């Protein structure tokens, strides 16, 4: 092996080591449908690959919903949790992706990569639109202006003038998968793998951003923007960066949503859907990034199973569950876990010092 090869493989090994957690998670998610198929459905590996009916197929569908919610919530965590921008219009970021990708596939005869490119351009435009508001308004005013922007979009997509494209109040239906691996109906497992790959990729990019010097500036802006300014940072560009990355992530989530769901309703542009993102990162832990993944899973599973077991009473139980989470896990699941990790380490250090007899 040459020296260059040795460094490459050493670099790869250290990368594997640093990313061990997320790679293990990815592997577990890939294996998950097979385990379900064998243990619960009593079918084999082939059933998953053949996309046969059963629990494995159904749970993949539910998992895809969770991944899409996680992508959406992770982008909100970058805006609100990391950078401290209180946006009430975040649902628009998602809805623009869902509607524009769906309409381009359904009503226009263009190749899906081109459609995706157009959607990404739309993502850039809406990020700039939100950013243009920033220098003028702060805090709750920014929240209201962004809510206004999203509401305009919410009204426009429901207008009867656009009903041929967007389907008015009913929503956008009949989006056909443009390529086999984006076909959630006939190629469920392939689509499942695609969403895992996107989620894991996005998660790695996000943790990289948050750990980078630019990420530290975003946290500094959240702590106190004036202090970041007086250190010489033109904070506008950093906020635009956060909004742009979040917008791109959210439109991707929206595009996947348009492929996965038989219908895209106008609800995904409403305030309620922004609150969904807020709830997810509150459950997972605001500003933790990985909390969005945990939060999305808890949110969707609670919603699904409480509804399945308790029917009409489920809304009340979901509400109680949120209250319990906020009361007993004030920093969310991941946030509280991390806060306790400091205590755990301190406790271990203390025990260690007792054992070794060293004074601390």
């Amino acid at each position, binding site marked *: 092996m040459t020296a260059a090869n040795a460094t490459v493989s050493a670099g790869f090994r250290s990368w594997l080591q640093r990313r061990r957690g997320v790679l293990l998670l990815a592997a577990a998610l890939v294996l998950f449908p097979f385990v379900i198929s064998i243990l619960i459905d009593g079918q084999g590996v082939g059933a998953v690959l053949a996309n046969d009916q059963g629990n494995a197929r159904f749970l993949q569908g539910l998992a895809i919903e969770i991944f899409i919610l996680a992508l959406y919530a992770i982008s909100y965590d970058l805006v609100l949790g990391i950078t401290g921008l209180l946006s009430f219009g975040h649902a628009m970021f998602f809805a623009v992706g869902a509607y524009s990708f769906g309409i381009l596939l359904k009503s226009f005869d263009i190749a899906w990569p081109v459609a995706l490119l157009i959607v990404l351009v739309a993502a850039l435009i809406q990020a700039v639109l939100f950013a243009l508001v920033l220098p003028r308004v702060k805090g709750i005013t920014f929240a209201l202006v962004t809510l206004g922007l999203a509401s305009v979009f919410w009204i426009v997509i429901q207008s009867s003038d656009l009903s041929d494209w967007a389907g008015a109040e009913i929503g956008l239906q009949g989006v056909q998968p443009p390529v086999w691996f984006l076909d959630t109906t006939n190629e469920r497992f392939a689509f499942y793998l695609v969403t895992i790959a996107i989620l894991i990729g996005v998660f790695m990019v996000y943790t990289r951003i948050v750990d980078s*010097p630019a990420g530290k500036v975003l946290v500094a802006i959240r702590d*106190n923007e004036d202090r970041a300014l007086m250190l010489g940072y033109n904070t506008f560009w950093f906020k635009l960066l956060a909004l742009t990355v979040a917008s791109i992530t959210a439109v991707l989530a929206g595009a996947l949503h348009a492929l996965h769901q038989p219908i895209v309703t106008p609800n995904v542009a409403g305030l309620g859907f922004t609150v969904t993102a807020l709830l997810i990162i509150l459950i997972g832990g605001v500003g933790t990034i990985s909390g969005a993944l945990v939060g999305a899973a808890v949110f969707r599973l609670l919603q699904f199973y409480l509804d399945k077991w308790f029917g009409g009473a489920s809304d009340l139980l979901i509400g109680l569950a949120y209250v319990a989470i906020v009361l007993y896990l004030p920093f969310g699941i991941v946030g509280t876990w991390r806060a306790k990790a400091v205590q755990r380490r301190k406790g271990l250090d203390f025990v260690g010092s007792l054992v070794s007899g060293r004074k601390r």
Partner: protein
Amino acid sequence: MTLLAMRDVHTFIGQFHILEGVTLDVPEGEIVALLGRNGAGKTTTLKTAMGLTPARSGTITFDGVDISQRRSFDIASMGLGYVPENRAIFADLSVEENLRIAERQKGDFAKKEEFIFDLFPDLKRLIRLPGTNLSGGQQQMLAVARALVPDNRLLLIDEPSEGLAPVIIEHMMEAIRQLSDRSTVLLVEQNFIVASRLAQHYVIVEEGRTVQAGAMADLVDDEEAIKKYLGAA
């Protein structure tokens, strides 16, 4: 040579006329104390120089360049460091991240590391700790240290002794004396004894106006002015 000069500066915050004619000169390489009672406009003077509360009229020049209409981050990039009152650190960043974020060029921190940790040995021990876990005195040290990371020609330091224990005030004074070898300092200080021992020059503001300025040695003997403007003996 005058590094920072403010001439008849007026600043409004909302509708309030806070600075009604501040004039001051900060000679390069010296420490100038900005004195006055609570609410006289000392902090606003620093914020105006820094562009955080921009001047409505008057001129502010830094090294001969008019900065009165520039934005904060531009002004900072010219070599002005600001240490605000109330331990203005980033609570969610670690001590090291607080210092590294102040880099204007890559390697600034590595270059200054030894000097900074000589001044504030405590910070070295706490380097991994989040800012929020530091004591008040440690946070104040970190705020001053952060302004030392880039090559700042002028440091604006607001009330470094406020709320600190006497022994830490001594330490802080010694640190400011040492860092003044490297850069010019405009110091806001309520504690007249601290100010008089550090600064070579003084400027007194009263109700947003400069009322008296000169050499610190003269002010120390001017009991009448001290009583009138500072309310201290």
